[in-house]
């Protein structure tokens, strides 16, 4: 068939990671490369040890061949995330994080954990953050009706996680609405 069964209802996390890896990160190259024109723009020149901004997929590719060090994005450190976690557990609303923080942090921690300070502790904080936010989005289900639900600051991976359940629930509300309306 034209689209595999697993891709029909929703987007899969790997596809979201692919989209996220189009974003730019800073790297310290270990090899030199002239400025090169790519379809998504021109990148380089790479001149060690000068920092340079390249797409995440390229950085991961170079990292795999041990040809660069990746500089962690400014939000990927203990202080920042710990602060968000405190806000997450004390305030009712979602704290603001980069839209694709889950994908980017996972890709970076998987491939370049030696470049990121405190990577083990970071993993723990990210997990706590994820659980705190998950609990909130489940609470959000209480406010669901047939017409609209605002979800400010929800992130791409979290949306994908709740998508099938929320969409079906809303569909059922719509059906109920349709069946009750004629009697009014």
């Amino acid at each position, binding site marked *: *068939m*034209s*689209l595999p069964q697993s*891709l*029909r209802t929703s*987007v899969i996390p790997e*596809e979201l990671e*692919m*989209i996220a890896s*189009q974003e730019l990160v800073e790297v310290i190259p270990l*090899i*030199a*490369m*002239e400025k*090169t*024109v*790519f*379809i*998504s*723009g*021109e990148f380089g020149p790479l001149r060690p040890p000068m920092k340079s901004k390249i797409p995440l*997929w*390229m950085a991961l*590719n170079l990292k795999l061949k041990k040809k660069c060090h990746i500089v962690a994005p400014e939000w990927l450190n203990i202080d920042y995330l710990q602060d968000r976690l405190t806000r997450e557990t004390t305030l009712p609303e979602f704290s603001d994080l980069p839209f694709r923080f889950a994908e980017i942090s996972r890709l970076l921690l998987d491939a370049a954990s030696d470049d990121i300070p405190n990577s083990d502790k970071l993993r723990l904080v990210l997990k706590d953050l994820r659980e705190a936010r998950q609990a909130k989005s489940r609470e959000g289900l209480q406010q*669901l*009706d*047939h*017409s*609209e*639900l*605002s*979800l*400010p*600051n*929800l992130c*791409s991976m979290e*949306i994908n996680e709740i*998508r099938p359940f*929320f*969409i079906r629930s*809303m*569909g059922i509300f*719509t059906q109920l*609405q349709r069946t009750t309306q004629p009697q009014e």
Partner: protein
Amino acid sequence: MADWDEEYNRTFGAGQAAVASGSAPPANPFLERIRDVARDDDDIDIDELMAPAGIQAGLFDRTGSSTQGEPPIQQLIRHWMNERHAPDILPIQEQLLASILDHIRRQSDAVQLIRSDPGASQEEHFRIVLVQTEIERIKFIVRSYLRTRLFKIEKYARYIVSNVDIQTRISASERAYASKQAKILDNHFWVTVLQSLPEAQSHLDDTPIFMPPMVTEPDKSRAVFVHALKQCPPVILPDGSSLEMAKDHISLVPFSAVENLILRDEVELV
């Protein structure tokens, strides 16, 4: 066929633009277009490879006012995700696809050229690997975008054949595919079941009361997650209230409520 349509759109679109600029003082988009042209000219001496894409990007800016300056790849990813999440078939992005496929071809040609050069250095080969990786990534997205559309076309084939509005949103080859699919399906139903039924029940498009129609239609009331790319004009929700989304607002709403915002590139589906 596709070329004809394209040619027609181009001449027709250009004619309209000429009329508009003749009757009214140049609007902001026009000025911005001029600025784009100047920028492209500057680019040429820096890099000749980028120039054609830059000019084409300028072309898109005229049609999509809210997505000005968005690189073609980001546009493609956005349209890909919109298509994946929307229950209905969205208008095909023929111009965008043509420009990206063209770019892929030029990039592959350049790779071939360097590869065939025996004097190419280690560093050259290294760059080629990265360029090829990018080509493969973009090819994957293009394929997935087209396959998503084909999936919907297969599903709604009979509906597409009978609906003129939806036919304007798909390409000529997609239209051909839809009618072929619909014909095969009709034939299959006829041979397996319908021919042995009494005349009154042997059609697919009759509308018996109390029964849903037998032709599969897109469910536009299905909810989608939208992310506002800019301040949006208010939309009417099914319960009668109106929703005005500020930039970066994220909401779960029925597709039908935000359909026009998607077409105007004011929101994206996430």
